[in-house]
């Protein structure tokens, strides 16, 4: 048995529900092809709002994937999370037989920033349209940030440490760090990740006040970080879930070790003051590398936050220069989210999924719709770039001031 100190956390399962694919294989295929799926917002009630372009998850049929008793009491964001969790568990080959003797050994951690807006709006319309007695009881739980953690835990019978991280968009990475700490403290495995469904009328209206939300109408021009045409970001829905577990017990049960969760750090800077995120993000990168025992020039690929507004992009490029030194100009930087949009907390976990797949495939996926980069970064554009990738750095910032960095490594 490994000692407490030596416990290390690895990814053994990945599940994805994204605008460019409702399973991991489809997501990776389109991500490495650099295909953009950004398009007009078509979700009911959103068509006439002044948000024109988004990354919608299409072809996702929750009825085919999730039992009706869970569907009636959950929002779309939890449907995504439950479906992605099932895929991650299948991928990890972690079935009930593996944990029913030790249900307290498996926990669940999710992050959420948007909550269940669609479900909540429906019930609030009943409140004001018909009266308080017409509001269903599941309104009390479905909108809530913690809903996905709770429902995944109940549905799977996971009785280990459960948590929800509400720390802004970068919370997606913080959730993975939380799960890592839980494993290092003795939990066998954690189902961890984030999924969001912010493309419902109420949720979209809440976002319209974001200064950095792209108002563009052309899907090829709406989200182009690191270019002189950067005009904000495009929101998206979807996310990813992982199974992470202690490396020795993963190997003992014959699981495929896909990546190591090597380091993480998070900081907080002033909301909407992107220039301050330079220092915060640099500090997070340095902290994550330190925890990983990783020198700056060992970073083989950066999955950028890529917010898409000039000040935010500049701050991120400078943060990379501050933290990585001259290596920041050589390391390949990518932002596949320009092809699918930013799914809030789901965004950085989709990047983490892409980072694991990139390392496995020796391929840095490109940054769709981005061509002429106006920062001192080697942004991978147009087509995927073959490379030997042992260490990936994933970055995320939130609109409210959170900054986080995660280091993932190929298993030794």
């Amino acid at each position, binding site marked *: 048995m490994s000692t407490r100190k030596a416990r290390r956390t690895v990814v053994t399962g990945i599940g994805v529900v994204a605008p460019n694919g409702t399973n991991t294989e489809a997501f990776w295929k389109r991500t490495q092809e650099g295909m953009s799926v950004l398009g007009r917002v078509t979700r009911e009630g959103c068509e006439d709002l002044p948000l024109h372009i988004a990354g919608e998850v299409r072809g996702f049929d929750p009825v085919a994937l999730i039992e*009706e*008793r*869970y569907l009636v*009491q959950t929002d779309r964001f939890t449907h995504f999370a439950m479906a992605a969790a099932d895929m991650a568990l299948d991928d990890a080959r972690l079935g009930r037989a593996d944990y029913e003797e030790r249900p307290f050994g498996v926990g669940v951690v999710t992050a959420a920033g948007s909550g269940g807006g669609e479900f909540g709006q429906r019930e609030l319309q009943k409140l004001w349209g018909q009266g308080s007695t*017409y509001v269903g*009881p*599941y309104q*009390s739980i479905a909108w809530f940030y913690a809903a996905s953690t709770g429902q995944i835990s109940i549905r799977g019978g996971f009785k280990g440490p459960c948590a929800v991280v509400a720390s802004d968009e970068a919370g997606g990475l913080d959730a993975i760090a939380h799960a890592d700490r839980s494993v290092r403290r003795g939990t066998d495995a954690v189902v961890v990740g984030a999924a969001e469904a912010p493309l419902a009328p109420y949720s979209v209206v809440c976002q319209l006040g974001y200064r950095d939300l792209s108002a563009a109408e052309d899907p090829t021009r709406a989200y182009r970080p690191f270019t002189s045409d950067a005009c904000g970001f495009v929101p998206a829905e979807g996310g990813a879930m992982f199974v992470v577990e202690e490396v020795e017990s993963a190997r003992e049960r014959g699981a495929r070790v896909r990546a190591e969760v090597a380091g993480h750090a998070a900081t907080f800077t002033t909301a909407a003051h992107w220039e301050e995120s330079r220092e915060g993000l640099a500090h997070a990168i340095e902290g994550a590398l330190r925890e990983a025992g990783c020198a700056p020039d060992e970073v083989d690929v950066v999955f950028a936050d890529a917010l898409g507004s000039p000040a935010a992009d500049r701050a991120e490029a400078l943060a990379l220069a501050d933290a990585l030194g001259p290596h920041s100009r050589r390391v390949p930087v990518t932002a596949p989210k320009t092809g699918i949009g930013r799914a809030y907390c789901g965004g950085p976990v989709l990047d983490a999924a892409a980072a694991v797949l990139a390392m496995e495939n020796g391929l840095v996926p490109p940054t769709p719709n981005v061509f002429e980069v106006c920062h001192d970064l080697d942004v991978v554009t147009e087509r995927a770039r073959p490379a030997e990738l042992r260490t990936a750095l994933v970055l995320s910032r939130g609109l409210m001031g959170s900054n986080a960095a995660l280091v993932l490594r190929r298993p030794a």
Partner: protein
Amino acid sequence: MTERLTYEELAALMKKGAGLSVDPREMENRSETPFDEFGLDSLGLLGIVAVLENRHGQPLPADADRCKTPREFLDLVNNSLMTGA
């Protein structure tokens, strides 16, 4: 309205409100079995109480949502509707 609540209607309410497929005849045969075993939790029963109150335009007794079994619930609802309480 004094229409009695039947097992068929209760099963339909459980389907619509809580997404549960329960055979009404089985529920009638096992009417002393706790709701839990049919998959109905306390929030689910609370929702059914609200639907019935809206449908009949009158409140049910305050402990309606604490009934443990289908039999207990049907007796309480039907007694309440009969007396117009």
